[in-house]
């Protein structure tokens, strides 16, 4: 059986299904931002954006753009009924203070000790893209990562230990890739779901960390 890895929307949708009503959720830039598109509008999930929006709603109609309302990716959004605004220090108080039920970030690598690396490919890289990821990663109640299972060159991104500079230590709880969903437990990565046709053996071949069956 052929396997068809998920595309970006597929990964986002996979993640979206697992976000229960009532959670406060921050979505990082990139694929995580797409997650909101796959949460049904009638499911009350409150999305937080670092720039001080609590209750980010879907994109506006092209003729109804509010130029003063963007998300952390600087994309025009709407405010959900019940939403409100805070300034940047209070917005990160929400993140750092443990008020986010969930943060979903992209990453270069995650490791079986829960480490995440998502801001630089080497310690010497001059142009650093830290943004708010470190604050979000240490502060959220749960950190989920959405990323391709391997690099374009086929190198594993699910590692025993991260090889790139860390964003935070020991914080990752779950990973959605284009091939599988992995939970991080005290024993290491446990496979919770795989795309049709994928086997544990084939998945392990694409993974540096040891995988346990769920």
């Amino acid at each position, binding site marked *: 059986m052929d396997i*068809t*890895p*998920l*595309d970006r*929307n*597929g*990964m986002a*949708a*996979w993640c*979206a*299904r*697992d*976000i*229960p*009503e*009532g*959670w*406060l959720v921050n979505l990082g830039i990139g694929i995580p931002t797409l997650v909101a598109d*796959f949460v049904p509008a*009638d*499911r*009350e999930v*409150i999305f*937080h954006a670092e720039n001080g929006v*609590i209750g980010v709603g879907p994109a506006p109609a092209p003729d109804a753009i509010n130029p003063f309302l963007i998300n952390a990716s600087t994309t025009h959004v709407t*405010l959900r*009924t*019940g*939403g*409100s*605004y*805070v300034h940047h*220090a209070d917005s*990160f*108080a*929400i*993140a*750092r*203070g*443990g*008020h986010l039920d969930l943060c979903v970030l992209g990453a270069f690598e995650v490791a079986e000790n829960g480490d995440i690396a998502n801001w630089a490919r080497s310690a010497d890289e001059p142009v650093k893209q830290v943004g708010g990821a470190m604050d979000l990663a*240490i*502060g959220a109640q*749960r950190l989920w990562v959405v990323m391709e299972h391997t690099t374009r060159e086929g190198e594993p991104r699910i590692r025993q230990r991260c090889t790139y500079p860390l964003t935070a230590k020991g914080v990752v709880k*779950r990973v959605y890739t*284009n091939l599988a*969903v992995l939970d991080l437990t005290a024993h290491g990565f446990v496979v*919770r*779901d795989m*795309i*049709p046709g994928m086997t544990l053996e084939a998945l392990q071949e694409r993974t540096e960390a040891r995988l346990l069956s769920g």
Partner: protein
Amino acid sequence: MTGDARQFTATVSTAADGRATLPRMIDKFVHSMADAMTGIADGSTILLGGFGDVGTPTALLDGLIQQGARDLTIVAVAGGRDGSAIEQLLSLGRVRKLICSFVRPASLSGRLLQRGDLEVEIIPQGTMAERMRAAGAGITGFYTPTGADTLLAEGRETREIGGRLCLLEYPLPGDVALIEAWSADRWGNLTYRDSAQNFNPVMAMAAKLTIAMTRNVAALGELAPETIVTPGIFVNRVLHVPL
């Protein structure tokens, strides 16, 4: 064909988190004082909003007295005048420790303190507010010149920063915050009236379980976003107690 997770029937359950997986509208209103007070354990630290009579959740304090939790640590601006709900908690022997910025000699807390019958921790008022903000904001410690040159610094860690002696202060989190709002909606978004904010928004951030009494109920969306002072994400339960 592009992969699309919506085609899969298997769903990763989140029941392990102890959260309901069935969709359920957010509604933080509780409809009885008993429901508002459910689960407050003996030994809890209670953050108690208000300044003077303004913004003080007196009905919730009465509810706490009814509820029966004991061995409490109460955090409030002051030790309470005679006739206040704090005095009632104290007189019922339900308070193990009082954390506040001052105690009036002519009050039950003052008299208990003078007799050595009450543990009291006195904190400068601004430091008290900031320690609760730190708890809510994930700041694990901070330095302030407030009190560094005083008796309150005795035996504590200080550090000179920019030529100024500073005290190291730690967060002051609560198990429960009891606060009063002017208006609330089902998400728990709160507004306050005039000077009735005082400690309430800070305590809402700093407690694991924030219980608000509100004088008015608003439909979701009725409170203008720019007037919401405490976003509902900081609030767990709201009880309507009309003025």
